[in-house]
Every structure is written in structure tokens, then in C-alpha cells.
């Protein structure tokens, strides 16, 4: 067998590249699509990609919560908002605003800086082995009622207030 110039990718790496490709395509659709509904579809693809990346990183609980909250709730809300304001979608001149040229420059610069930053630091190539997934979920549960109990309760309050506030804001007063 001839010597390859680069090491053969492992199955995990191939899966990672596929999922990351989905996510990047979705993110680009969000930014570039003229039709806002297509942007929302791209957003769903990006959310699925993120969930897949969590699964590759063996964080199953986060991955499934991501699908549940982002795909199930947040994209549905966004799609509803798009449909309720759909007078905005047709006949609009350009999806970009006046400062989009500057914005593109800033974004490109930010990406280049981040890339440079990532490539200068020797990051670990592999994490420690993870055994039982059940123990992680149990640990998450315990952390939420022990050291993180105050933020957890505050979060519950925040969700309640947001729920009530959203209803008050969006209600038709007529």
C-alpha cells in the first residue's frame, strides 16, 4: 500500500466534516438568502448541525435539548413571526442595509483574527475518554440543585417573565 501524504481520516472525523458542512451551509443560507423563509430553513439546518456536533462531542443531553428547544420552539416561533409579517418579504429591494459593505469587512476581519488565534495555540488533539453517559446526566441534575440552584431558579423566573411579557407585547389591544 503506497504511503499517503496525510493520515487517513477516522470515521469520527468524516462524520464531523459532514455535520460541520451542513451547519456552515445553513449559516450561509441564513445570511445570504433573499427569501426570509429560506433563511429560516437554513437556520433549522444550522441548529441540526449544532446538535450533531454535540453528539460527536458525546454531549447527548445537550444535543437532544438543542433539537427540542431550538428546532421545536425557537424556529417555530421565528417561522410564525416571518409569516405574520410576510408583507415584508415580497417587493423588498435588497435584504442588506446601507452599512452591509462595512459589515462584511468587519465580519471578514473578525473571522481572520479568530482563525489566526485558533491556529497559534496548540490545542489538545483528543479529550479524555468518557465512560457512562448516564453518570453525566445524573451529574447535570445534581449540579442544577446544588451549586447552580440560584441561577437555575432565576432562569425559571426569567422564562416565566418572558412568557408573560411576550403575551403582553404581542397582544392586539383592539
Amino acid at each position, binding site marked *: 500500500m503506497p504511503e499517503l501524504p496525510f493520515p487517513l481520516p477516522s470515521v469520527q472525523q468524516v462524520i464531523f466534516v459532514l455535520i460541520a458542512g451542513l451547519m456552515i451551509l445553513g449559516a450561509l443560507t441564513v445570511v445570504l438568502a433573499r*427569501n426570509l423563509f429560506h433563511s429560516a430553513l437554513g437556520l433549522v439546518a444550522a441548529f441540526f448541525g449544532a446538535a450533531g456536533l454535540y453528539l460527536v462531542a458525546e454531549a447527548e443531553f445537550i444535543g437532544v435539548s438543542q433539537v*427540542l428547544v431550538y428546532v421545536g420552539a425557537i424556529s417555530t416561533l421565528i417561522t*410564525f413571526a416571518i409569516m405574520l409579517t410576510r408583507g415584508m418579504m415580497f417587493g423588498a429591494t435588497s435584504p442588506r442595509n446601507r452599512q452591509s459593505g462595512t459589515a462584511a469587512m468587519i465580519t471578514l476581519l473578525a473571522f481572520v483574527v479568530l482563525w489566526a488565534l485558533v491556529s497559534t495555540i496548540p490545542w489538545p488533539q483528543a479529550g479524555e475518554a468518557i465512560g457512562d453517559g*448516564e453518570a453525566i446526566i445524573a451529574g447535570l441534575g445534581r449540579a442544577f440543585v446544588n451549586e447552580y440552584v440560584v441561577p437555575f431558579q432565576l432562569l425559571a423566573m426569567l422564562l416565566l417573565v418572558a412568557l408573560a411579557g411576550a403575551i403582553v407585547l404581542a397582544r392586539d389591544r383592539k
Partner: protein
Amino acid sequence: MNWSDTLIQLQYDLGAPQELSWLVEGITFFVGAFVLANAALVLALLLIWITRKVVSRIQDRIGPNRLGPFGLFQTVADAVKLLSKEDIKPTTADTPSYLLAPVLSVMGVLMALAVLPIGAGLIGTDLNIGVLYLVALGSLGIMAALMAGWGSNNKYALLAGFRVVAQLLSYEIPMVLAMLAPVLLIGTMSMQGLVQAQSFFLGPVNLGVGWFVFLLPGAFLIYFIAALAEAEQTPFDLLEAESELIAGFHIEYSGMKFAMFFLAQFLNSFFLGAIAVTLFLGGWQGPFAGQIPLLGPIYFLAKTFLVYVVIQWIKGTFPRVRIDQMMGFAWKVLVPLVLALILAQMVILKLPLPLWINYLLVLAANLAVVATVLNIMGNYFQSEQIRSKRAFEPKSLIGTMQPVQSSSGD
């Protein structure tokens, strides 16, 4: 012994090299997924046949009886008819969402197969978050309905899509909370773990009848009602409401794309029944299922088909509810009741009492929930009965195209 372990061992015995372990595992899971998905497609034909037979018996008809034994092949003929139909796409449709929606709806349903425990070692993969995974899959169906409603570029489809999403989102909350009751009782989300916890030992013999439905009937009832709504079955089949919304969000779909929505709906009600069986009716457990492994799948399928027939029975007998009644029932009855139930269960289980008294108290709380739900439903059907009687009175003007005096009706 797990089926996947058996299959992997078989491949090594046939001479697969050890260093290709990822390929061996890949082949194993591909075979499993292939077999399960195709079995589900064949199953759908059987489910449609059962629906037709049950409903026609309720309506005093015979149902399909021409093709094959007992008319079993009628659905095959219908599938061939749908396949050979012209595939129409509206010119103004939004192509990507119009084409993706049927695929997504079938995918969301089929993915549930991965965690359904059919037998002792017969499960696609025993995720330690199995229950949460099933809940998350519901969001795929919601997205599919939205995409179909929007992509068809038809106002009826869009309206129906809105209604379906509102229905699915509202009933997801009581369903998830009811599924939480057995999960919190046992402390695991793994499907096999939940099934194992429902064994009942009489001496050394596992009779397998320690079903959660005997301890948590209230949670089971709420799950079942919410599952009817999630599966878009009568009395909550507002999605189909032929007289109001023509056929729901898939009005613009024809041929095989329509068949995919149809398939997803039937399989979804079957799988929601299978989840009910796994969480509340003992899964594959039953007398002597531990001794004879073959009995496990038989018990599981028998129970699931029984639940499915009950769903079709309800389809044949119940009237359809109005949308405001349906949403009100979810938010004003089911959600508060199931929240109170979960709270009561967790407080009772922490009381410093003997365990059997704790369990008795949990059972009492559940029975109170059952009584409340049945009472509310009874009141509703009684008032509907009075209304419909009044509508068919000889002097009633409803439906006669004549102006109804406001005082004469009441």
C-alpha cells in the same frame, strides 16, 4: 445478548478482519436500520387495513373484502394507485420547502424506531436519554407541517399548518409531563431500563405485570389523550377536517408525496401507542417473557396493536371537537392537572413513610386526576348532546336557511 452484538460476532466468525471494526459496526447498524424501516413501511399497509376494518365494523359495513384474504391486499392496490398518479407541483410553490416537507415528516416518525424496545435484546440503540429523544422527534413533525403549509402557497394549507402547529405544540406539554411521571419514579430515561422496572416477581418467577398503569393511571390517561392529539386522531383530527380546511396542510400534495404524509400519520399513531406500551403497559414484559425470549416481541406487538385498535375505536365513535375547545382542554385542564400530579408524586415519594403507603398515596392522587378528567369530559359530552338534540327538534330552524329568532332557540 443484544441483536447487534450477535450480528457483529457473526461477521467476525465469517472472517471479517478485526482492524475493520468500524466497517463491521457500520454494516450492522445499516442492516438494522434497513430492516426496521422496511418493516415499518409494510406495517403501515397493515395499519391502514386495520383502520378500515375497525371503522367499517363500527359503521355496520364489511369494509374491504375483495383483494386477498379478508381484503388484506386492498391497501397494496391503493399504494400502487398512488404511485402511478401524476406528480403535480404547483407553479407558485416554494420548491425547497414543498419537496422537503413530506420527507421530513416521514423521517421524524421513522427515527422513533431507533429506541423502541421490541424485545429483551431487540432495540436499535438503548440511549440513556431515550425518552427525551422521542420527545425531540416531535419537533420534526412540527417543522414538516409548517414547511408544507408555507411551501404549498395556498391559504388553506397555510391556515391548516398554523392550526396543526398550535395543536402539536399545546399537546406536547401535557404529553411530555405525563411521560415524566414514570421517568421520575424510576430515575432513568433509558427505554430498556423503564421496561425492566416494570417486572413483578412472585417468588423467583418474573410475571412481568408490574405495569406503571396500575400505579400511575392518571399519567397514563393524560398521556393517551395528548397522544391522540399528537397523532392527529379523532377527536382532535382538526388537521383533516374535510368540511372546514379541505384536507389540511397537504392539500396541494398528490401521488407519492401525499402518500408519505398519509404514511407518517398512521405510523405516528402506532408509535405513540408503542411508547404508551413501553412507558405504562410493561413493554415486552409479560408472563414467562424472561424464560422464553420469543414471547417478548409477541407481547409487545400484541399490546401495541391493541392500543392501536382502541385508537381506531375512538376514531369511529367520537365526534370532532372545535379548535377553541381543544386548545382550552389542553391549557386549562391537562396542563394544570399534570403539573399538580407531578408535584404531588414527587412530594409524596419524599414523605418519611413506609414505601407501600407512599405508593398508595401516589395511586390515590392519580385516581383523583382520572376522576377529574373523566368528569370534565362527561360534562362536555352531555352539553353537546343537549345541543344536538335541540338542533334536530322539529321546530328547530338550524340548517333550514331561515332566519333563527334569537329568543326562540333558548
